């Protein structure tokens, strides 16, 4: 069960695909309307952890898990869980900007329409989502253009807007700025800071400086295990574990 203050709670979650153990006994809580950072070197399990939270892990062949994950009061790992609805409540932005081969407007309206949102609301939804992703001013005159014509940073903000158009409660971001220039990166971090007021955000990044800049609390994941969790300023100034200190200082990565 989650206490009133938790949005998501992981209880001893272990995740395997085939013989490989990607997550080892993970327990942590994520509070509503915070930006929670997940950092660690490659192959530490960060992306896998994210994908468990919206059951995208089901797509991994031979996936198995033990433990529990609670979203509000719902056990999202149970076989009764409505996975399609879960994915509408918990949105995911991937690291490579992946606009669908459609117009900007259609990218935003396709999934909401299929989810049953009313047609009349669509134009309003498009404008709200694009404004929230700080892309409205740049594309408001060309919503009918192909989304593939946008620049990398614009495409990624479109992907964020697309997730927002589903009106989720939680937003997961998997290294969202890894391929982007510093200006686009700054725009996205600024957007996340604004979004924090209304959404719970989990940010995965290989870039420790981004985690230090943009998150409220951080967890350090190393080789499928949580090493340390805490308020971001504390973790970065007085880490409790030597490995955390080594990672932050760049002694390994």
């Amino acid at each position, binding site marked *: 069960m989650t206490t009133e203050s938790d949005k998501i709670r992981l209880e001893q979650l272990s995740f395997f695909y085939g013989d490989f153990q990607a997550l080892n006994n993970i327990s942590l809580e994520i509070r509503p309307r915070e930006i929670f950072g997940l950092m660690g070197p490659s192959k530490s399990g960060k992306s896998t952890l994210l994908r468990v939270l*919206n059951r*995208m892990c089901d*797509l991994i*062949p031979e996936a198995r898990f033990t433990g529990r994950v609670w979203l509000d009061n719902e056990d999202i790992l149970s076989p009764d869980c409505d996975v*399609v*609805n*879960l*994915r*509408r409540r918990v*949105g*995911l932005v*991937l690291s*490579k900007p*992946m606009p*669908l*081969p*459609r117009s900007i407007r259609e990218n935003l309206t*396709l*999934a909401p329409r*299929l*989810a049953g949102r009313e047609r009349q609301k669509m134009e309003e939804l498009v404008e709200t989502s694009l404004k929230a992703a700080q892309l409205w001013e740049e594309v408001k005159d060309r919503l009918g253009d192909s989304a*593939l014509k946008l620049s990398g940073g614009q495409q990624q903000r479109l*992907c964020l807007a*697309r*997730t927002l158009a*589903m009106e989720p409660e939680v937003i997961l971001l998997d290294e969202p700025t890894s391929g982007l220039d510093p200006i686009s990166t700054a725009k996205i971090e600024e957007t996340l800071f604004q979004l924090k007021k209304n959404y719970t955000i989990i940010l995965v990044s290989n870039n420790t400086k981004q985690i230090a800049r943009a998150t409220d609390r951080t967890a350090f994941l190393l080789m499928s295990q949580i090493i340390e969790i805490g308020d971001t300023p504390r973790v970065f100034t007085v880490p409790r574990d030597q490995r955390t200190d080594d990672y932050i200082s760049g002694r390994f990565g």
Partner: protein
Amino acid sequence: MAWRLHPRITQAVAKTLLWALTGLTLLILIFIIVNISIKGLPQVTLSFLSQVPQDMGRHGGIFSTIVATVYLTLLAIVLASPLGVGTAIYLTEYTKEGWATRIIRFGAECLAGVPSIILGLFGFVLFVMKLGLGWSILSGGLTLAIMVLPIIIRTSEEAIKAVPQEYRQVCYSLGMSQWQTITRIVLPAALPGITTGIMLSVGRSLGETAVLLFTAGAALRTPTSLFDSGRTMAVHFYILAREGISMPNAYGTAAILMISILLINLTAYTLMQRLIKRYS
């Protein structure tokens, strides 16, 4: 001691050789087109196209064969496309690679390798005789459908597999179901490839003679129902040439056939370009 040429020489030789081979291929194509055009285009008049064959094809036109060709090809495509595309979707989206998918794929490949005359015999035994359909458009269409099914399955499968996996991930993470993802994003993106497969099948059907001689017969009248027999342009050409009935008319038929194939390829190409533009 090894004998080696200067790299620049081998480059030049390779380039010339490749150009020559390409040129030769084109020359052969041009030769065929020119040959048929010279001998056949003079026969192609409006009356040739609108009249039915008379006197076993010595006089008159080829209207009935045009109609039969359209009916047979249309029937084959209408039957084979949903089945073929459906099989391709099932193999790629709904099953994992395993012994079952390998068997299905192997079966389709074997079917593709069957000589058309054997397929014709099979169609004769099953449709014409056992099911009592007789020599008819229906028998011919069904057998042609069996013949082109592997082509459609193979090309559709390739086209669907070529759609980036990331598109599916995006759709699922937005809360779309598998069926919605397939119909709204995957299939439209695969449409150019699937259309190619269908166009290839049309081309194959247009050129078939053995299959149709055994199943659709060779009636000269214009077919009006599925149970009528009929002869396609290719079959008509074969009979005219082989029986020595009328070489000019044979060439005329060949010219029409060639023009039809060129037109279909052109339409297919423009359609594909438009689809690619719209969906990617």
